[in-house]
């Protein structure tokens, strides 16, 4: 892989540190008077999500991480792996539970997801911002209550549980924000 010099640092750049891929979140140039210049970066570990600080002497270089993001279609899960297809190459990829993390609970099939590939394998998967899923289980609706005053738990067809308004019934399709796990509307 290529190397990046500190002068190329900017947020979003993917670099290797201690054998793990990281994304630069923030880059600060610090130079005392006539002294040595430094770049202090906040970096996010792309495997664990943990954010740490690292300081480099300006002019140092660091190995680039072979990380890129592609939109892929979710095909199916076999219980251990989630299978995706790159719609431009038809190439298939399998993501493990660690890569899926929270995304798994929003997917039933055919959704287009943002997949982060590291050395050619899925490292992280982002569900679409919103999904439309049927409610498989919730307490009976309260007829006429459309004020949105109260809410109740509802289980979706993928197994995810969200809070929905009281007037929403089993069998209805809901639009849900996957980032906040919030009910948006009836679909």
């Amino acid at each position, binding site marked *: 892989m290529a190397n990046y010099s500190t002068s190329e640092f900017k947020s979003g750049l993917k670099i290797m540190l201690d054998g793990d891929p990281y994304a630069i979140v923030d880059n600060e140039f610090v130079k*005392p008077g006539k*002294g040595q210049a430094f770049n202090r970066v906040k970096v996010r570990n792309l495997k664990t999500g943990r954010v740490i600080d690292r300081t480099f002497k300006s002019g140092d270089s660091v190995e680039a991480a072979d990380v890129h993001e592609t939109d892929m279609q979710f095909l199916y899960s076999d219980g251990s792996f989630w299978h995706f297809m790159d719609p431009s190459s038809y190439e298939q990829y399998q993501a493990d539970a660690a890569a899926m993390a929270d995304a798994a609970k929003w997917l039933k099939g055919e959704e287009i997801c943002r997949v982060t590939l590291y050395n050619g394998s899925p490292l992280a998967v982002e569900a679409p911002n919103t999904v439309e899923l049927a409610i498989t289980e919730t307490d009976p609706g309260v007829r006429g209550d459309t004020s949105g005053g109260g809410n109740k738990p509802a289980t979706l067809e993928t197994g995810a549980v969200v809070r929905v308004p009281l007037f929403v019934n089993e069998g209805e399709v809901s639009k849900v924000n996957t980032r906040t796990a919030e009910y948006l509307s009836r679909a």
Partner: protein
Amino acid sequence: MAGDSNWRPAASLEALRGRARLLQGLRAWMDAEGFLEIEAPLLSRAGSPELHLDSLHVPRAFPDGAPGWLGTSPEFHLKRLLAAGAGSIYSVSRVFRAAEAGRLHNPEFTLVEWYRVEGTYAQLMSDIEGLLSHLLPSRLLAAAPERITYREAFLRHAGLDPFTVATAELQRHCGTGGESDRDTLLDRIAGFEVYPNLGRGRVSLVNDFPASQASLARIRRGEPDLAERVEAIVDGVELVNGFVELVDADEQRRRFEADIAVRREQGRDCPELDERFLAALEAGLPDCAGAAMGFDRVAMLALGVTSLAEVQAFPQDRA
């Protein structure tokens, strides 16, 4: 096709008016203190080999085909004027520092540099305090200026004595085993721990630097040797660097040659040794004290903003 919205200035027009007023205030102070304004060349045939400041190389800059350098300060030209008997002088000019960019850095900025003939160490510090309190609003300077030695500043804000601490302890402190150069480790602690905590509500003048960080300052012999060098910090931002100036031509040549050797070893660009400057020192530089102030940073603090881009019409990304 959409136009490039970066044609507009980065700073607000109001900030640019504020900056112009500060420049007028600066010139009024210099005039009242008896400094003569000088315009030195930006483009030089030689330049400074200082290790941590890179000039910009300009190929075929001169009519004879010789390359030139856009320099990091007007220091050598101003000192040649001092040696020629100009008396106390100052300049306000753009200077260049290759590849420096960030919230507090731009590869080109305005440097105010002044020299007081027969200026002492104490006079240097009171000049810096006087100028900064003239330029900065009282909200930033509620308390009286503080003069604090480099050693004391490190003891107070990093909990170590920079002159006696073991190198291994500095490495532990920085969490890095790979760096063995003491000054690099000290620079890192200064930049991240010490300076950010200085100048809170006042001017802090850090003085008595390690002799290894003397740059062009005179060294006072003692245990340890100390550089008569001052840095002024307000609100955690370094604004001024000043020296009781080194007037010994042989010592100056030795320091240049040491820096040039390191640059060559690192395979870095290196301006020619400035023989005209050294000749001026040999002819005799009067005893003097001088300082350089980053005008853009002063404007940034005075106008209550947090980045240089907010007081520069066209910072590097729109220049």
